């Protein structure tokens, strides 16, 4: 075998090793979570509130809290993201659209904790207390640019001929967008929204000083709110073994939810393309 062929096979092996190595890490992380988490998982754990060490307790309020925070954030973040994404795809080719697109794209990379600091200054400092509202606003801010980007991509995929057909039939621009283009891109937009939900479901840092966390079931906007991620963090950094086990079990719940969403998205997009 000459030198060139040898280099070729060495490099092919190396890149394959990289790929399989990275996937091995994924399997190691997920496997360890499943292995550690499953033993502490029980019905009580899923419905109880956190209790002092030695008395059991669970993540019931944290699950409800995460869902409420997510629901509120989605209510604001998803429609706004879809609107901005639609704007960028349908009328965003001018200088203004270019600026908005650039800012939205750059916003995706801004650390989530910075949004938390901002909302802390705007909401928490003004009101004087940590609240569900502050947490939801933070998550919504994180969602907007993500939904914007996927919506723009999906709306742009809708063939021009469909728009032209509708316009030729005499439909006004806004009805073409609302009744033809958006429905055609709906699967893509929905999957983008789901990915954004999955992303903020895992957010921890910005919630530490906005929603803060709570040991009780709570449905009020103006009180601190528990979340799965913050609860995992609190359990994880505690010195108690029993709480570490709870951290793993809560992680198993969280990761299962997130992977579930990702796999559904994968399934939906696969059918389409």
């Amino acid at each position, binding site marked *: 075998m000459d030198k060139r062929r040898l280099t070729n096979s060495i490099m092919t092996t190396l890149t*394959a090793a990289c790929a399989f190595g990275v996937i091995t890490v994924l399997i190691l992380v997920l496997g360890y979570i499943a292995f550690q988490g499953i033993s502490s998982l029980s019905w009580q754990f899923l419905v109880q509130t956190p209790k002092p060490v030695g008395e059991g307790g669970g993540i019931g309020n944290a699950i409800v809290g995460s869902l409420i925070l997510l629901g509120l954030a989605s209510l604001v973040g998803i429609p706004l993201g879809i609107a901005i994404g639609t704007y960028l795809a349908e009328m965003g080719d001018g200088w203004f659209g270019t600026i908005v697109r650039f800012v939205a794209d750059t916003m995706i990379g801004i650390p989530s904790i910075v949004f938390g600091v901002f909302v*802390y200054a705007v909401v928490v400092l003004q009101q004087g207390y940590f609240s569900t509202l502050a947490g939801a606003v933070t998550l919504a801010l994180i969602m907007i640019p993500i939904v914007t980007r996927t919506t723009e991509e999906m709306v742009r995929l809708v063939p021009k001929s469909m728009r032209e057909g509708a316009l030729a039939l005499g439909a006004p621009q806004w009805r073409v967008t609302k009744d033809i283009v958006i429905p055609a891109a709906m699967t893509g937009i929905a999957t983008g929204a789901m990915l954004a939900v999955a992303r903020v479901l895992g957010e921890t840092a910005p919630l*530490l000083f906005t929603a803060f966390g709570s040991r009780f079931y709570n449905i009020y906007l103006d009180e601190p709110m528990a979340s799965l991620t913050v609860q995992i963090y609190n359990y994880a950094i505690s010195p108690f073994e029993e709480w570490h086990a709870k951290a793993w079990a809560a992680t198993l719940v969280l990761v299962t939810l997130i992977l579930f969403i990702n796999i559904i998205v994968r399934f939906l997009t696969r059918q389409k393309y």
Partner: protein
Amino acid sequence: MSNNQDENNLTGSNISGEKRTNNILGDRIFRIVLTLCATLILVIVAAMIAVMTQSSWLSIKEFGFGFLTGQNWDPIKGEFGALPFIYGTLVSAILALLIATPISVGVAVFLVEQAPKKLARPMAFLVELLAAIPSVVYGLWAIFVLAPLLRVYVQPFLQQTLGFLPFFKGTANGIGMMSGGIILAIMITPIITAVVRDVLEAVPVTQREAALALGATRWETTKIVLANANSGIAGAIVLGLGRAIGETMAITMIIGNRPEISLSLFDPGYTIASVIANEFTEATGDLYLSALIEMGLILFLVTFIVNGLAKLLILSVARQTAQSH
């Protein structure tokens, strides 16, 4: 609401003249509403800069540029210097990039250039899943799996073989800069991989065909493709840098959280994002809070610039390949 009204009019039995005006009005309202939504994103970013500057004004006035070079972080004495945090952020991010870049490029090359399509697609999905795992979960895993692994096996080995270097001195306790860098590397690998894949896929097939037709091996062809995609790969790396700088939970849980500057990778460090996460809720006193918000502002500005740069680099490849088609 007004859109609904227009719709009702449309479906009613209007004469065509009125319908036309409604359509024009509808279009105008539609455009205005969407443009307002788009403007909102600019307003948010502007508000973020304004609010965080205003909230950190106390600290900016007190310390000026000295904030960036100050080495002491002592809330009790009211001394706030960001240098140890900037150092910790940069070193952990660079360490992460050193590990993640070659691996990510390797994965992307394998998935785009070498693996059969049937294998490449599910593998690409699995790599992307790594990015879906939340930061706090990586943190948990790092505390209980990575740190013990490093403490017992990796760090003693490094100390024995390369212990003469300043990077591998001190006590090996698992928690520290090295663990931070490794966990960041795992987290940014899927992000860099995804961009490099896109960039490689954007290189025209004709280039590969030309190289292969001239008798180049697969790897030689790949080298040509990589050379063509290099500014996009640079963009991917810069994007990874932005992520590594801003990553918070995992690194907060594993880096040790001590504001000291030490050459040794075994020693604990502290990052900008971590100090915000750890100390924000317990910040007593206006100056303390103000200093922490200034940290947030620095993080914002740095990541905004880094991400903007990454985007420009990635765009330049897209433009190049668009021209060559």
